[in-house]
C-alpha cells in the first residue's frame, strides 16, 4: 500500500522534538504508557486509603489525616475515574496500540502523526485537570465514577460537588476529545497503511483488537462528550437536562422537567462499550502470547476475529443492563437482558479457543506467558458472574452490591491489568532493547494472581449477603456490620498485593538500565515487530517496507526448518 509516502516526517533533531513533542508513534506509545503508570499508582494509592478507611473508619493517617465519609467518596470517585480513563483506556490501547499497531501491520508510523501527538498531550492535560480536583475548595467530587445526576448536577448536594465536580467533568470531556483523535488515527492506520501482503485476515489478533476498540471509542466517546457538556450546562447555566424539580435540604432549586435517567442512558451508552475498550486489547495480547509461547497457531483464528467483531457490535446494545433497577421500563430490561446473555457467547468462544491453543502445545512459561494465562483465569472468573447480573431478576438482590464490584474488578480491572502486564513483559525487550528480570517477573506474577483473587473473590460473597457498595463504613447497618471480618481480610490482601507492585516497578526501571541486551526476537515470535531491529529505527523497518507472506501465528509448521515462520519469511521457507 502507500505506507512509504505516509511517513512524511524525517527523524527528529533535538531533545524536545524527539522525546517531548514527538511525532514518532513509538515515543508517543511510551509516553502514554508512563502516563498510565503514573495514573495507576495514584489510583492504587487511593484504593489503599479506601481499604484502610473501611476497616478503621476513625484512623488518623500520617500525611493524609482523618478520612471522613465524604473524603472516602472522593477517593472512590477519583479511583474509579482515574483507573477507567487514564489506566484501562490509556495503557492497552493508546500505549501499546500506538507503539505496535503500525509495526505489526508494517507501517512506518501512524496515519496522522501530528494528530497522534495532539491526542497524547490532550490526554495529559485531561489528567492534570483531573488531579486538580483534589486541590480546590471542597475537594474532589463524591458522586462516583458514574456521576449519576442529580447528585453530580447539584453543587449543593454535598462537599466536592462545587468546583471539584466541574473539573472532573471538564477533564472527562477533554479526555473524550483526545480519545476521538486517537480512534480516528487507529482506524485510518489499520485500513490504509498495511504493508503488501498484510491482508485483514493476516493481521495479528492484537491489531484486530486495537482496530475494533478504536471503532468502539469513536462511537462511544462522542456520546460521553455530549453528555458531559450537558452536565456542565446543568451545573453552571441553570439548564435542566438531567434535573427535575428537586428540594435539597429544604431548598427548592430552580430546575424543572429534566430526566435523571437521561444521564444514565447517555453515560452507559458510552460506559458499556468502555468495558470492551478496556478488555479487548487484553484479549488480543492474550491470544498473541498464548500462541507464541505454546509454539502453536492460535486455535480458530477466524472465530477469534468474528468474536471480537460480535463483542464490538453487541457491546452497543446492552447498556441498559446497568439500569434494571433505575426505573426504566421492565420490558426494555427484558430486551437488554437477552442481548447481554448473547454477548456471553463470543466471550465463551474466545475462552474455548484459548484453551484449545494450549492443548497439544509446548508451553514456555516465561513471565509474559504467566500473565497471559492469568488473564484467561481472571477472564473466566470475572465473566461467569456476568450471567447472574445479566438476569434482571437476579440483579434485584445483587445490583449495587459488592457482587458487582467483584465482577467488574476481576474482568475489566484485574484481567485488563494482567493484559497490560503480559504486554509489558512481552514487548519490553523490543521497546527498551533489554530483557526484564525473569525471577522478579515470576514472583510478581504469583503474588499478584493470588492477591487479586484474595481481594476480589470475597466481594461476591459479600454481595450475596447484601453488602451495598459505596458505603464508607459498615457500622450503621446491623447485617452489614457482621461482614466486617471478611472486609478486614480483603484489606490485608490488598496490602500484600499493592506491595508486590513495587517489585514490578523496580524490575521495569532496573531492567531499562541494567537488563541484559535483548536480541531482535527473544521469544522466537512471528509477527512483524520481531523482524526489525531492537529497538526499532525511526521509520520502523530501516528504509524498506516489509512484504508479508504468512499468517500471524505459524508455529511448529510440519517440515519447516525451525518452529516458527516469520510473517515476512519467503513462501518456500517451510519446504526443506
Amino acid at each position, binding site marked *: 500500500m502507500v505506507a512509504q509516502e505516509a511517513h512524511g516526517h524525517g527523524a527528529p533533531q533535538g531533545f524536545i522534538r524527539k522525546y517531548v513533542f514527538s511525532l514518532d508513534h513509538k515515543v508517543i506509545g511510551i509516553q502514554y504508557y508512563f502516563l498510565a503508570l503514573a495514573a495507576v499508582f495514584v489510583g492504587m494509592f487511593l484504593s489503599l486509603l479506601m481499604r484502610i478507611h473501611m476497616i478503621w473508619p476513625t484512623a488518623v493517617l500520617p500525611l493524609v489525616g482523618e478520612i471522613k465519609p465524604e473524603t472516602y467518596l472522593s477517593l472512590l470517585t477519583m479511583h474509579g475515574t482515574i483507573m477507567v480513563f487514564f489506566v484501562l483506556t490509556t495503557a492497552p490501547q493508546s500505549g501499546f496500540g500506538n507503539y505496535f499497531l503500525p509495526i505489526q501491520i508494517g507501517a512506518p508510523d501512524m496515519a496522522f502523526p501530528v494528530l497522534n501527538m495532539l491526542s497524547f498531550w490532550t490526554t495529559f492535560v485531561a489528567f492534570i485537570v483531573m488531579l486538580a480536583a483534589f486541590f480546590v475548595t471542597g475537594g474532589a467530587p463524591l458522586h462516583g465514577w458514574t456521576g*449519576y445526576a442529580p447528585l453530580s448536577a447539584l453543587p449543593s448536594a454535598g462537599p466536592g460537588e462545587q468546583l471539584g465536580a466541574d473539573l472532573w467533568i471538564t477533564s472527562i470531556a477533554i479526555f473524550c476529545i483526545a480519545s476521538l483523535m486517537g480512534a480516528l488515527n487507529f482506524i485510518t492506520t489499520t485500513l490504509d497503511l498495511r504493508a503488501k501482503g498484510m491482508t485483514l485476515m493476516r493481521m495479528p489478533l492484537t491489531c484486530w483488537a486495537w482496530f475494533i476498540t478504536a471503532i468502539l471509542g469513536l462511537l462511544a466517546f462522542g456520546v460521553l462528550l455530549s453528555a458531559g457538556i450537558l452536565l456542565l450546562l446543568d451545573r453552571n447555566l441553570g439548564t435542566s437536562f438531567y434535573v427535575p424539580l428537586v428540594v435539597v435540604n429544604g431548598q427548592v432549586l430552580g430546575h424543572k422537567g429534566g430526566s435523571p435517567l437521561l444521564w444514565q442512558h447517555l453515560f452507559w451508552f458510552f460506559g458499556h462499550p468502555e468495558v470492551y475498550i478496556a478488555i479487548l486489547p487484553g484479549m488480543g495480547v492474550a491470544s498473541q502470547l498464548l500462541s507464541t509461547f505454546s*509454539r502453536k497457531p492460535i486455535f480458530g483464528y477466524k472465530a477469534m476475529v468474528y468474536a471480537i467483531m460480535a463483542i464490538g457490535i453487541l457491546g452497543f446494545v446492552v447498556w441498559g443492563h446497568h439500569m434494571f433497577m433505575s426505573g426504566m421500563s421492565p420490558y426494555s430490561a427484558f430486551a437488554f437482558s437477552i442481548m447481554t446473555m448473547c454477548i456471553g457467547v463470543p466471550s465463551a468462544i474466545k475462552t474455548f479457543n484459548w484453551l484449545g491453543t494450549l492443548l497439544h502445545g509446548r508451553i514456555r512459561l516465561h513471565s509474559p506467558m504467566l500473565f497471559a494465562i492469568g488473564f484467561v483465569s481472571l477472564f473466566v472468573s470475572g465473566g461467569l458472574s456476568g450471567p447472574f447480573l445479566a438476569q434482571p431478576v437476579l440483579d434485584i438482590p445483587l445490583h449495587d452490591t459488592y457482587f458487582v464490584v467483584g465482577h467488574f474488578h476481576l474482568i475489566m480491572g484485574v484481567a485488563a491489568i494482567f493484559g497490560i502486564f503480559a504486554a509489558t513483559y512481552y514487548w519490553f525487550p523490543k521497546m527498551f532493547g533489554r530483557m526484564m528480570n525473569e525471577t522478579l517477573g515470576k514472583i510478581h506474577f504469583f503474588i499478584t494472581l493470588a492477591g487479586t483473587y484474595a481481594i476480589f473473590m470475597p466481594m461476591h460473597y459479600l454481595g450475596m449477603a447484601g453488602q451495598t457498595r459505596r458505603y464508607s463504613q459498615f457500622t450503621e447497618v446491623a447485617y452489614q456490620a457482621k461482614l466486617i471480618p471478611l472486609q478486614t481480610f480483603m484489606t490485608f490482601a490488598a496490602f500484600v498485593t499493592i506491595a508486590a507492585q513495587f517489585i514490578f516497578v523496580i524490575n521495569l526501571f532496573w531492567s531499562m538500565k541494567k537488563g541484559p541486551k535483548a536480541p531482535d526476537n527473544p521469544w522466537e515470535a512471528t509477527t512483524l515487530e520481531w523482524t526489525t531491529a531492537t529497538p526499532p529505527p525511526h521509520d520502523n523497518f530501516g528504509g524498506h517496507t516489509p512484504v508479508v507472506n504468512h499468517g500471524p501465528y505459524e508455529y511448529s509448521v510440519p517440515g519447516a526448518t525451525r518452529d516458527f515462520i516469520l510473517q515476512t519469511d519467503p513462501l518456500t521457507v517451510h519446504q526443506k
Partner: protein
Amino acid sequence: MGFALLAVIWLITLISTYFFIAKTWWLPLGASASAAFIDGQFTLTYVLMAIVFLGAQLALGYLVWKYRDGAAAKPVKYSHGNTTLEILWTALTAVLFIGLNLMGSRVWAHERFEPAASGAVPVEATGMQFAWYFRYPGTDGNYGVTNPTLIDPSAGNEAAIGLDSTDPAAKDDVVTGSMYLPVGRQVDLTLRAVDVIHSFFVPNFRFKQDAVPGLAIHMHFTPTQIGDYEIACAELCGLGHYKMHGMVHVVSQEDFDKWLAQREAEKQ
C-alpha cells in the same frame, strides 16, 4: 513452574468454590413471596456457572502443566482449530445462556410487568438525604397533595415530605420514619425521591428499586414472615449514604391495624 502454576490455579479455584458451596456467606433469609422464585433461579444459575468455572479453571491449570515445555515434552500438534468444535460450543453456550435468561424472565415478568393487585396495602416511600419516610393514605385510601415548597426535613414525618395539610385527602395521611406492613398481604409501593436518586433495598425481601426525583415508581411485593428487616440505601446519594438506614416491621394484620389507628390518633 508448570506444577506451581497448576497448584495455584487449582487452589484458588477450589477455595473459592468451597466458600460458595459451604454457604459461609449467602443470601439472607428470604421473607417475601418472590424470595423462593428468585433464590431458585439464583441457585440454578449458580450450579451451572460453578460447573463451567470448575471445568474451565481446572482445565487451564491441567493444560499448562501437561503441555509444559521440557525434555519430555511431546511434539506440537500443528492445527489451526476445528470448525465442528467451534460450532458445537457456540451453540451450546447460546442455548445455555439464552435458556437461562428465558427461565428467569418468567419471574421478572411476574414481579415487574403486572401492577399491584387490588386490595394491596398502599404505602409510599420517599427518599431524601439521608432518610426514608413512609406514608399511608389513611381511611380514604387517597394520598393527599404534597408541595415541594413545604418540605422541611428538620421537622420530620409529614412536614419532611411537604404534605399540604389544607388538602382534605391529606388529613388522614400518616407519615413515619419506619415502615410497618401486615404479613401476607401484597404491598402497593410508590417510590419517590425529593433530592437525588436513592435506592430502596430490603435484602430479606429480595427487593430493590431506585427512587428517582421527578418519578413516582410503582412496585409491589408481599412480605411473608413476621419480623424486623433492615432497609439499606443502595444508590450513592451523598456523604451520608452509608447511614441511610431504615427498618421494615412486618406484623400481624391486627397489630398493623392497631398501629395505624394509634398513629392516626396521635396525629389528630
